[in-house]
């Protein structure tokens, strides 16, 4: 099977689950940021909790290797803040915008156009960012367990406990 077909099959399954979870909606994403409805956070945390255990098992038995994105301080902090600000106004993230279009919310086209313009703008500004925000402090591709000096399975157990407590609180507050 080639690369493109595998990507397409995976994407169809991903889009199907995102739509079934009802997390593609503008209103759900904005409601999470307004702390009114935590559906998208429940979906994300459930995916992360399950995926984390499976991927660490596969890595533990050397079946696959992790690809940590670099912890480039300026890039992640400033870029993350810009993303959050744009996300609140746009009401979609890159993956969900395309899915929202699939479920008929055609105004997602505007978000997609904006993001294509943003990608083109970033490509033009890349040399400038390389000299500035990307050059501040790069800690490289670091992982939480090594950084904290803890066993990965202990970190996973702590993360599970923390998330379950948070999710129980969401349910109690009917968020």
């Amino acid at each position, binding site marked *: 099977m080639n690369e*493109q077909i*595998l*990507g*397409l099959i*995976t*994407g*169809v*399954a*991903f*889009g199907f*689950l995102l*739509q*079934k*979870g*009802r997390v593609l909606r*503008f209103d759900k994403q*904005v409601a999470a*940021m*307004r702390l009114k409805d935590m559906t998208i956070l*429940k*979906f*994300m945390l*459930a*995916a*992360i909790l399950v*995926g984390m255990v499976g*991927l*660490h098992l*596969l890595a533990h038995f050397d079946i*696959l290797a*992790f*690809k940590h*994105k670099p912890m480039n301080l300026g890039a992640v902090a*400033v870029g*993350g*803040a810009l993303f*959050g*600000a744009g*996300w*609140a*106004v746009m009401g979609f993230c*890159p*993956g969900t915008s*395309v899915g*929202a279009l699939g479920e008929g*919310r*055609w*105004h997602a086209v*505007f978000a997609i*156009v*904006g*993001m*294509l*313009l*943003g990608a083109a703008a*970033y*490509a033009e500004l*890349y040399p400038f960012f390389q000299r500035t925000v990307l050059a501040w402090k790069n800690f490289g591709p670091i*992982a939480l367990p090594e950084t904290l000096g803890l066993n990965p399975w202990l970190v996973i157990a702590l993360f599970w406990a923390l998330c379950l407590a948070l999710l129980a609180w969401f*349910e109690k507050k009917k968020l």
Partner: protein
Amino acid sequence: MKWKTDDGGWNPYLSGAMTGILAIASALATTRVLGKTNYLGASTTFVRAAGLLQKPVAQEHVAANEYYTKEKIKVDWQFMLVVGIFLGALLSSLTDGSFRAEAVPPTWSRRFGPGVTKRAAGAILGGLVAMVGARMADGCPSGHGLSGMMQLSVSGFVALAMFFGTGIVVARLVYGGRSRE
């Protein structure tokens, strides 16, 4: 807790957990089939799509651009993943009756009125800023949020905290506080 939402959707814990299983299966499948491990992500595809769209009118400019060269302008695994998200959402919404043509989202309409022009301006501006941010941070809620946090990458945790932290502040400014409907 209900297994189905009022409009026939699935419980977010169930659909989310299944997405976690998909992420594991996908990492395994790419490792086995392609010989390299790919993790779920979406925002690099927007760079490749922007490059592909610019190519016919500015071939040399795209070829000379350092960032486009770095990210390689091509229709790859992730590009087709993003195409698949569209098709999967279409399939799911058509089969369960939740497909709906929507010009302006209800939350936006309540705050800024039903005009399409205003919504378009907001979405384009927001999308532009968000994508500059996503490329700077090297990931979006899929790449950093899902894939990064599953791997316990430090960057994933910091990025998701920044995404939501700033999102909460800006959403409050744009749509008003919690009490406002």
